[in-house]
């Protein structure tokens, strides 16, 4: 039933593999795809992955640096796979502990792992256990609870109790009908007896939720205890003048007169530094206070080899998750990241003198740097040169929601390209927003005045291709690209209108523009201020591009431009959210509104700003 099962080390050497009967394709491809998309992109939260027709499940063994992967057909639903992997892992570890414990790889290379027989046994066991669970047979009447009850207990009399053994229902003193007094007395006695029995049983059993006896007054945490404090009538009546003076006196020390005279002061970083120092002092105090209490426990944790378990890491991960969210990383992504880090560290043996917190922090830092590192080569100038040699223009499309800075950053990027000697054609495909074309024309004029045509071979370095307002954006883009090819422009920058990700017709129009014109680079422009919205925006944009593309290899977002980076201080979490969702690199970072405010991303600096307390 299984297609394959591999055990390989994290360094890439396959220790043992098994291929199911009748399976001819090699499993190297799917397993590599699993490694690249799940483990390396820190999506290790759930442990299953589908690749074409195969469904893959994996398990990491962090103590011996091994990975266990099982693959089976997607259409089968095998219930025993999870438990099976765990069993195989434990078995393999116990059996080959000696070979695996050595840190060097030589022993791994030289030893052969003859695991087939044990594996086939485990597989047989697992398959049988999944079949052995037959459906539960129905109970016969004799076994049911109803047959145990007496007929009398099930008689419902009006005003009496229902004779069931359940949590105390109050016996109501309801209307008495005209029945025999004796019968009523007997029933009442019986009811009260049952009631007391039920109460006793309830005390013994776990209590079922009771309805409150009466409506209880709700108590809030911060509420005052009485209304007397709210009665200001005495104060107001007697000393009104004194009361006002008191109020003024209270506010005076805080407001400093004459401090706002003159120009406004600029934003400086002193306040934040002071805050950091205070925080550090507080942390140190806490550590010292706690240290004496659990000194031996702490020492035990520091020295010696101790393997990490989920419970150890849980409090640290909670703190880290909150820290990341405070730094503007989207909430789901922060929790997915923490889950992935937990999976990576589970079972790992810590070295001496390392605490759980430091190990987790280091692992989180490494995975953040890994996420921010681009997964492909990012060198726009080189690609433009390549397109130049092929005598076609290099087309870059900018898309994003309203107001993120598409046109501004387009102007900055064209300035950068002009400085490097390329000629740029700007295609004004924003035919909706009032003033969009004029804005681009102003940029064009300014850029041409900064780099006059006389210095660049008599030809203006920037030209604007526009067809006014209200026309179809995809058509304008196509014409612009054809014009650029004829006039031998090096780069075409296509500016589109901002659109909300929920707006289906506009998303269709954007997808059509991209599918028809096949640009070389589709850049999503996102502002660094965005928080959880980033996830929604990117997912919906990618979804729309994939849905409306007509071809099997749809053009998705290829890169991200992170704008308004100067407005966030060190809350740089948006960078993480965006790269995590798409897996695409951040190509440009916009740090202001002048032409020089264009930067590239430095992964280490962003991560250190993110991890800074």
């Amino acid at each position: 039933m299984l297609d394959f099962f591999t055990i390989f080390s994290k360094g890439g050497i396959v220790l043992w593999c098994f291929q199911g009967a009748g399976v001819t394709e090699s499993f190297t491809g799917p397993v590599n795809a699993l490694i690249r998309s799940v483990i390396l992109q820190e999506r290790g939260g759930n442990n299953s992955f589908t690749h074409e027709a195969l469904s893959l499940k994996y398990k990491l063994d962090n103590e011996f640096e091994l990975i266990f992967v099982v693959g089976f057909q997607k259409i089968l639903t095998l219930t025993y796979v999870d438990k099976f992997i765990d069993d195989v892992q434990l078995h393999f570890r116990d059996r080959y502990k000696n070979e695996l414990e050595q840190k060097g790889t030589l022993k791994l290379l030289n030893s052969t792992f003859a695991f087939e027989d044990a594996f086939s046994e485990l597989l047989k066991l697992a398959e049988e256990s999944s079949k052995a669970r037959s459906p539960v047979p129905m109970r016969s009447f004799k076994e049911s609870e109803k047959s145990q009850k007496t007929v009398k207990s099930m008689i419902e009399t009006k005003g009496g109790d229902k004779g069931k053994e359940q949590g105390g229902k109050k016996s109501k003193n309801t209307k008495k009908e005209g029945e025999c007094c004796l019968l009523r007395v007997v029933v009442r006695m019986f009811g009260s007896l049952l009631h007391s029995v039920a109460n006793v049983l309830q005390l013994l059993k776990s209590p079922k939720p009771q309805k409150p006896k009466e409506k209880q007054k709700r108590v809030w945490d911060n509420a005052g205890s009485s209304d007397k404090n709210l009665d200001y009538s005495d104060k107001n009546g007697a000393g009104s003048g004194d009361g006002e003076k008191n109020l003024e006196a209270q506010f005076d020390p805080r407001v400093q007169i004459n401090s706002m005279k003159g120009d406004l002061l600029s934003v400086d970083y002193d306040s934040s530094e002071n805050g950091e120092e205070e925080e550090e002092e507080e942390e140190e105090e806490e550590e010292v206070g706690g240290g004496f209490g659990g000194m031996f426990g702490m020492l035990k944790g520091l020295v010696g080899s101790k393997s990490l378990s989920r419970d150890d890491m849980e409090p640290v991960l909670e703190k880290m998750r909150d820290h990341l969210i405070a730094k503007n990383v989207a909430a789901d992504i922060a929790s997915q990241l923490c889950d992935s880090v937990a999976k990576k560290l589970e079972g790992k043996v810590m070295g001496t003198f390392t605490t759980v917190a430091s190990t987790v922090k280091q692992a989180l830092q490494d995975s953040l740097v890994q996420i921010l590192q681009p997964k492909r080569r990012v060198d726009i100038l080189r690609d433009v040169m390549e397109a130049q040699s092929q005598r076609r223009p290099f087309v870059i499309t900018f898309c994003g929601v309203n107001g993120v800075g598409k046109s501004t950053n387009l102007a900055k990027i064209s300035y950068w390209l002009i400085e490097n000697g390329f000629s740029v054609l700007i295609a004004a495909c924003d035919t909706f927003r009032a003033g969009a074309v004029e804005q681009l024309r102003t940029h064009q004029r300014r850029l041409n005045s900064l780099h006059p045509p006389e210095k660049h071979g008599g030809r203006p370095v920037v030209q604007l291709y526009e067809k006014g307002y209200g026309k179809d954006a995809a058509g304008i883009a196509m014409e612009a690209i054809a014009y650029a090819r004829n006039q031998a422009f090096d780069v075409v920058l296509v500016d589109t209108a901002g659109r909300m990700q929920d707006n289906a017709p506009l998303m269709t129009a954007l997808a059509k523009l991209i599918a028809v014109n096949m640009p070389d680079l589709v850049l999503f422009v996102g502002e660094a201020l965005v928080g959880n919205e980033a996830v929604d925006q990117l997912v919906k944009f990618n979804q729309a591009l994939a849905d409306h593309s007509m071809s099997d290899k749809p053009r998705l977002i290829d890169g991200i431009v992170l704008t308004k980076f100067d407005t966030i201080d060190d809350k740089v979490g948006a960078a993480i959210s965006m790269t995590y969702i798409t897996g695409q690199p951040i190509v440009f970072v916009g740090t202001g509104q002048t032409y020089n405010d264009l930067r590239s991303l430095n992964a280490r600096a962003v991560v250190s700003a993110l991890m800074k307390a």
Partner: protein
Amino acid sequence: MGEKTHKDSPENPFEPFIESLRQQVEDQDPVILIGVIVALAVVVITCVFLKYFLTSKTVQSAILLVGLCDSGKTLLFIRLLSGKFKRTQTSITDSSAPYRAKNERSSSWTLIDLPGHDSLRFQYLEKFKSSARAIVFVVDSAIFQKEVRDVAEFLYMLLTDTVISRNAPTLLVACNKQDITMAKSAKLIQHQLEKELNTLRVTRSAALSAQDGSVGGSVYLGKKGKDFEFSQLPMRVEFLECSARSSSKGEEGEADIESLEKSLAKL
């Protein structure tokens, strides 16, 4: 007596202080004296040790196997160490083992196989670059034409790294997968890489500085004004062909890594 003191004072104005010190030292208990001397000696020895450990250069005894993803680094690693064939997957951590070339005279190196995936390679390179005695850059010769820009960019990053250009380890470019019929020869690969690196010199220096102002890799490759050639580099560069998988017999059989082993023996 008066004349003596009169003569002494202009020569040695500190004399009375030294006298008083000496008297105080003599007054002291000898045990405390010994204790003070021992403490001073310990402090001096610690300082000497620290200085020795902190400023000593890291010993360079590592051979790094680097390259793009799927170029065959892990299989080469296995072949060099044991000569066997094992299936491999994409590495996500480094593997290291001591290596001794077949030549009797050569010393023992540490062979380190680094992952080639884009998101991991720089982290591991940072860790190991200072201890590199030689770098084996593995290139997939069969699909080189499609990947030439990625290969060149990685090579550029390696060569312009400040630590590596300072230590100048030997660079061996191993053109792997020669058993495939469409594999390019080492000469062709060298020529293509020189052209690409020539172009990259221009585009990389024009690249944007990072958002905190730092510019990466300020080392200029080769000589200004002339086309880039590998002979212009401060380190020894050698191009060789090899094949980790043998051509005829599939998985079993000897791999053709003679030239690589010879070059490693020459280190």
